[in-house]
């Protein structure tokens, strides 16, 4: 599997390298379909009908992802989705002054809900928000000028979209081409090779403490599996995990967008893939370490939080999971087995030359 992805990346490079040497006009515009390899046991990838994966679109999205060219404040996508942090970042402050923990980017092509409140339903929809003042504060005229000046982007836009006449593109057209390209690139970021994945494929065994942690994770003792099910390690649904007895402000989650009482305190269940690398934790980064997270589930869940997920209120666990110090350490060890170093180090997901 790993070899196949590297080979695919190589093909992408070769195809695009060959095309770079000649000027491409709209007349001979054609794209190369990108054949996505879905790891065994993964659900079908959700690819919008109007944005199929192409080698050229992915290449453009890859370059744009790491480039501050779209922003008026020096930010790029990679500023907040940092490679070394599994494409997350510890904190950002939103316009309301709330501390927000930036979600990691992994296996997004398999998700149906996005952002901490799960109210967005495609990577394109997420990326479209990045032009706003809260993020890139994009000046579209400046962006057009920058793109026009860069031969690299003139060629890449022509190859990906058959159009590089930026001055003639409407704001929405240009934004659509950009978010579709980045959306394609994000869908190629597939993680399937953590030690836990290898264990599930019967390729390796886990350590005794990792196995103990898995037993806690996958039984009623810890009951983590209901929300963090394999292979994505997230249900990709929104829920209230009892963080606050009475959520206020940003902590009200989806309620802030729907106004529906039943959405109070609900946030998207984040993936546990690469969770070791994405501290701090929860939507507001309130927990600095995995140990703090587990202690929350062990003894800190607010059982009276409105709309708390029913699986969090099991009778007999009113006082928490009652895990011993050793059991908590085993759970941490198991969570760290979900780190996928081959994903983090994959050159296809690093800053391009």
């Amino acid at each position, binding site marked *: 599997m790993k070899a196949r992805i590297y080979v695919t990346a190589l093909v992408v490079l070769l195809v695009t390298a060959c095309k770079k040497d000649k000027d491409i006009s709209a007349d001979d515009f054609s794209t190369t379909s990108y054949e996505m390899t879905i790891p*065994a*046991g*993964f*659900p*079908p990838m959700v690819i919008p009908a109007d944005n199929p994966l192409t080698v050229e679109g992915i290449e453009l999205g890859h370059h744009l992802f790491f480039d501050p060219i779209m922003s008026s404040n020096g930010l790029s996508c990679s500023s907040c989705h940092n490679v070394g942090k599994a494409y997350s970042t510890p904190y950002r402050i939103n316009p309301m002054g709330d501390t927000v923990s930036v979600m990691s980017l992994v296996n997004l092509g*398999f998700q*149906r809900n996005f952002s901490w409140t799960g109210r967005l339903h495609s990577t394109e929809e997420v990326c479209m928000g990045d032009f706003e003042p809260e993020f890139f504060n994009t000046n579209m005229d400046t962006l057009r000028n920058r793109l026009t000046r860069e031969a690299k982007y003139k060629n890449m836009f022509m190859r990906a979209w058959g159009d590089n006449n930026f001055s003639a593109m409407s704001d929405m057209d240009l934004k659509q081409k950009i978010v579709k390209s980045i959306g394609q690139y994000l869908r190629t970021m597939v993680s399937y090779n953590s030690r836990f994945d290898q264990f599930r494929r019967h390729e390796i065994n886990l350590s005794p403490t990792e196995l103990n942690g*898995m*037993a806690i994770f*996958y*039984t*009623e003792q810890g009951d983590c*599996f209901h929300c963090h*099910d*394999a*292979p*994505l390690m997230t*249900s*990709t*649904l929104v829920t209230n995990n009892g963080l606050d007895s009475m959520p206020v402000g940003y902590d009200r989650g989806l309620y802030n967008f729907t106004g*529906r009482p*039943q959405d109070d305190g609900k946030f998207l269940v984040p993936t546990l893939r690469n969770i070791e690398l994405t501290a701090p934790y929860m939507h507001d980064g309130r927990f600095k370490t995995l140990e703090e997270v587990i202690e929350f589930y062990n003894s800190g869940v607010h*059982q*009276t939080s409105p709309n*708390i*997920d*029913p*699986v*969090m*209120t*099991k*009778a007999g666990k009113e006082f928490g999971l009652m895990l011993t110090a050793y059991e908590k350490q085993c759970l941490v060890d198991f969570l760290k087995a979900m780190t996928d170093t081959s994903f983090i180090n994959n050159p296809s997901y690093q800053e391009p030359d």
Partner: protein
Amino acid sequence: MKKLALLACIAVVFNACKKDNEEEPAPVANTLNVQLTFNHDGTPVQFDTIMFQQAAGYPMSITRLQFYISNIQLIKEDSTLVDISDYQYVDAREATTHAFKLTLPVTGHFVGLKLQLGLDSAHNISDALPALSEHQNMAWPEMMGGGYHFMKFEGQYVDSTGTFGYAMHVGTNPYLVDCVIPAHFNLTTGNNTIGLSMNVNEWFKNPAIYDFNIDGNYSMGVMAAMMKLKQNGIDIFSKQ
């Protein structure tokens, strides 16, 4: 005029010959469209609002209702059974899962339906179902027996001390729920439609009252709780 008559005659003969040589059209399969609805003692289910009276007396809401239906069988008048389905995933919150079309191998008069709520042992094996998110979200951990949740039925209930969650999760082979739906109906050639309605409160009564504060507000892995739900589940469906 004579020429025209001759031409018409030739055309008639030609077409007649042609018809004899045409293959018989493939017989159109008879089908049964199953349409599911959900009620609480007759009141259509609405989600997320504490508006129902649970059989043990608690005001309750419903936040999630997901399950599998397997092995739908028609009961003929001589009590023999006709198999008409494999398995179907149903999410009561997702209207697209409420209707499904089955091929009907026989037509005639029937005196009822049988079905199982859950997955039979041939399908209730971890990762046996297609790798789709809806199935993966129903996984029942290997360490607890493997396979899939047969049902997730969740919400909140109120007692004299406060509001609490309940999670009626049923799974593992011994707790596959056998449902019987007595009803006389005819199925004819062509397309047929049958409506089945689940009375969710039947999970909590007949033959035994299920009390969240006595039997447990969380059933997964609790054999006595799952057995009571299985026994109550026999009459959860009725024909509409």
